[in-house]
């Protein structure tokens, strides 16, 4: 017959076995839920159901048996000293993931809810992949999450390493710097007067409480690059080349990450800071530092750094355009090819102008890269680059525009011609050579330009052209357009030619002659002076039927 003691013992055994069984099931559920979360989106029904099941099982266990602790070894997880699960020693397993970062045990306590379990699973999944980055680890992630119903213990290497707790004292040399500096500091302070502390004066006013909250908020929201101010100040104080190289490397890292964050103000602050340091180093004659800093500024224009803007260009906010403009002011002509890429990416006129405003002065310094770019650019880019040449002054850009008049694409030729007209009207003779361009639109544009206003040079060119260059085969529409332009730019100097054209007797008149007479009438009408009107009156009364016919046609 079983004694009370053995009955109690076997009852306890059964209870422990039951606990273990339940713990095993909870662990299995945890592993399964983790797997679901890695396969499906978090909001998926499968994930939600698994999580609910896990929480229910865990809640029941905690209600019946109290806290649930899992002890972690590299390839297995135990509870109450018994192995719950053995796993292969490999990346991704639950045991290895937890063990790797030093977790000795995890313990769930009553009250753990689905939100916490979800957080735990997310963290485990996030850190299950080996990384060589130092950014964070699973322990820090757990700690930052402040899980109210999960405790854990971490073993650190140093604990095992130092079995005894005797602390080796610092050496004399380690203390010497402190001794000197702190003695100096304390001697200064001893000489200052202390004042009694009134306890009531220590109470914070409501304004001060608000100030504290503001301080904390400011600290939490501070710019990720604000610390660079300290580094730049360190350069001004401590001018060893080693420090410059180091700080410049850090500044470049921040420059890159500021661009990827689209923090243009941050980018600009970095550049302005280093620019100031460069100025000081130049003034103080520190050639090595100047060299390092200038090399950094040169590198801004190279594709390696400048192309970073391409990744974020679409998301640059209009509120930051002014900062971007000032950033681009640091660039050199080497930046032109990448800037042209940005130009192609720019949809809005403001963005396009932003880039053009950067390219134009750079191209004015050195046009070669722009010219090289033109040779292989597509129509869309050429179209935009024309604006750059238009904005630039000087013979070189004009020559480029003129060369674009022979671009195979009509649209480009038209844009170039428009640009030529906008840029510089002193090259009228060069423009006039295009009057016989095979492209009708080009011819039309040339004549439109010639006829914009009274212009003696234009008049002279047109007169010469009409008188000597026209042939009987010349397109009649073109002839009329030439005469129209003459009328718009001409003066009484054109009257003699026009009169001759009107009244010259031709033995065998052709349609070409009629066209010319028609053109002359239009020209005279547009000139509009007293002399011109006189010629027109004479034409009305002319004995030549062709002349009268032409008049009738015009004035019908």
């Amino acid at each position, binding site marked *: 017959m079983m004694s009370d003691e053995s009955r109690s013992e076997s009852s306890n055994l059964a209870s422990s076995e039951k606990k273990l069984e339940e713990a095993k099931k909870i662990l299995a559920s945890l592993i399964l839920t983790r797997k679901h979360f890695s396969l499906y989106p978090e909001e998926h029904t499968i994930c939600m159901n698994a999580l609910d099941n896990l929480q229910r099982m865990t809640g029941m266990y905690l209600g019946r048996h109290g806290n649930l602790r899992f002890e972690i070894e*590299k390839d297995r997880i135990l509870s109450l000293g018994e192995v719950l699960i053995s796993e292969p020693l490999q*990346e991704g397993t639950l045991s290895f993931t937890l063990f*790797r970062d*030093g977790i000795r045990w995890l313990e769930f306590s009553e009250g753990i809810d689905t939100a916490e379990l979800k957080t735990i699973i997310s963290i485990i999944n996030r850190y299950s992949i*080996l990384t*060589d980055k*130092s*950014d964070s680890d699973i*322990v820090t992630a757990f*700690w930052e999450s402040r899980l109210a119903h999960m405790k854990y213990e971490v073993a650190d*290497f*140093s*604990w*095992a*390493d130092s079995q005894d*707790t005797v*602390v080796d004292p*610092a050496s004399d040399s*380690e*203390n010497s*710097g*402190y001794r000197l*500096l*702190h003695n*100096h*500091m*304390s*001697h200064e*302070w001893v000489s*200052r007067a202390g*004042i*009694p*502390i009134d*306890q009531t004066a*220590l*109470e914070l006013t409501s304004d*001060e409480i608000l*100030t504290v909250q503001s*301080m*904390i908020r400011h*600290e*939490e929201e501070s710019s*990720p690059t*604000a*610390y660079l*101010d*300290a580094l730049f*100040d*360190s350069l001004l*104080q*401590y001018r060893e080349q080693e*420090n*410059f190289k*180091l700080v*410049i490397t*850090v500044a*470049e*890292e921040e420059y890159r*990450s500021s661009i990827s964050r689209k923090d243009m103000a941050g980018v600009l602050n970095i550049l302005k800071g280093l620019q100031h340091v460069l100025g000081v180093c130049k003034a103080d004659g520190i050639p090595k530092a100047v060299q390092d800093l200038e*090399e950094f500024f040169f590198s801004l224009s190279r594709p390696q750094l400048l192309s970073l803007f391409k990744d974020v260009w679409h998301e640059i906010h209009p509120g930051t355009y002014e900062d971007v403009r000032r950033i681009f002011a640091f660039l050199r002509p080497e930046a032109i090819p990448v800037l042209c890429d940005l130009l192609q990416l720019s949809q809005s006129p403001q963005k396009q102008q932003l880039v053009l405003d950067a390219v134009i002065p750079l191209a004015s310094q050195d046009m070669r890269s722009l010219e090289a770019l033109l040779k292989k650019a597509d129509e869309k880019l050429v179209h935009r680059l024309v604006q750059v040449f238009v904005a630039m002054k000087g013979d070189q850009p004009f020559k480029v525009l003129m060369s674009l008049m022979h671009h195979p694409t009509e649209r480009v030729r038209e844009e170039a011609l428009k640009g030529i007209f906008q840029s510089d009207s002193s090259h009228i003779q060069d423009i006039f050579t295009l009057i016989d361009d095979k492209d009708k639109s080009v011819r039309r544009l040339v004549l439109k330009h010639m006829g914009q206003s009274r212009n003696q040079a234009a008049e002279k060119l047109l007169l010469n052209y009409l008188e000597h260059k026209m042939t009987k085969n010349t397109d009649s529409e073109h002839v009329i357009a030439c005469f129209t332009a003459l009328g718009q730019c001409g003066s009484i100097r054109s009257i003699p030619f026009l009169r001759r054209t009107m009244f010259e007797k031709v033995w065998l008149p052709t349609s070409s002659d009629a066209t010319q007479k028609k053109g002359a009438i239009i020209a005279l009408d547009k000139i509009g002076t007293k002399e011109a009107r006189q010629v027109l009156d004479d034409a009305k009364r002319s004995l030549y039927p062709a002349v009268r016919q032409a008049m009738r046609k015009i004035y019908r």
Partner: protein
Amino acid sequence: MPEQISHDEPSGGRLIKSLYHFTTMIRIHQDNNRSIKDCLADFNSQVSGLLTEGELSIQIWRGRFHIQGEKLVYRREYYTIINEMLEYFSARGLGGICFLSTFNKTLPEQIVMFMHLLNDSAKHEDPAGWLDSELEKNNYSWVELYRKQDESLIPQDLEQSSEQSPDMLSKKKARNIYLHALDTVRDATEKASREAGGVRKARRLAQTMVDMVYEDSAVLLQMASFKSSGDYAYMHCVNVALLAVCLGKHLGLSRILLESLAICSLFHDLGLVDPPDEVPLKHGDLNHGGLGILQRHILVGLRKTLQMDIPHDLRARIIPGIFEHHLNLDLSGFPKTHFVKRLSLFGKIIHISDVYETLTSELVDEIGRLTPDEALRRMWGEKGKAFDTILLKIFLTMMGIYPIGSVVELDSGEIGLVMEYSDKTLKDLPKVMLLVDDGKGGMMRGEIINLVDQDMDISRRTILRSIPYSRLEIQPAQLFNEEAKAYMVF
């Protein structure tokens, strides 16, 4: 272009990989084979590259290799090799190997033979013991072995024990944190001087500190009262960190900010521990530019911090505090600034903590040494100029008129040690541990009385004045942790 700071070429990983190849190749080929020679050359190069400060230690702890005490971080492509080497060591009962400085003078044949011995040791019942004896027999004094440790034998004193009161456990935890902190600062300083190292250890410590400050900040303040001239370099940093974290908590900073503040404080004087050779060791020489050299410790500390492997966000938070901790609120102090126009919150907090800790330090001479309350009164006189007034108010409220750890004389003639303030509003009536003569010329713990909570029928005791520690030759922190005294040797 300046050289990149690169932490993505783990030399430790290459060392382990080299060892793996060497032990593998040596099983297959003859010793004079070209492959063996290549392995030897590579292994030599890897060890020589890492052999600094006299030795190169490769140790295993919790399934990870640690090279020179730093956990090995490795790429995924090394994963299989690392695991195989972990198994290799485990099968031989080895917890690691240490190559000593004489490795560089070792004959190539000896290194090859050592690899054979490593491989062969697995055949023996006690591989590590057999290896040890073979190394001794062959007089291989350039290498030492670590035995595999039983990782379950960790000090259990952090675990709850039903025999210990919560107060006792709290004190023991604080003591452990303090010792761990000293070790962490020393470790970080040594690594920083080698331009290496990360902050994972410091991070763990900081997280533990933050947890502790939420549980019982008074205990941390008690530990911060520990003063010693012998170990000042590290204790100063730890004390400043404890004060700063407590102040930060009273201010209402989040846990994540407190973690960063703790790390910043631990590292704030990184540049001062090994001053440059030209620093004069006599106080008088400071007038001849020596002080400027010492002031450079801030900039040296900045450089060392930048060279450490620190996550970006953390780096961005701690740099300002390290730079500014000797700057006053009005930007007087040092170094001079052009870009920094106002102190950061961390800078202000650490400045307060650092000055207080310095003024109450045992390292300074008699002339400069102040009692804690005297120090606070001096600091209060500089509110708005040297210190942010609001932060200083909070600091003074936290510390009390007679800060925790102050030795005070009561109007009854008794001497006591301020332990804590149970009533947060009455900052001149703390809980005091009376100190009594131990009959051997020293002082020992006596009754603990709460000056707030005194029976009105018995004459109330009040504090007359504070007394410098040195006059009584006591260590407040040691008296606070009397129960844990057996574990602590200072």
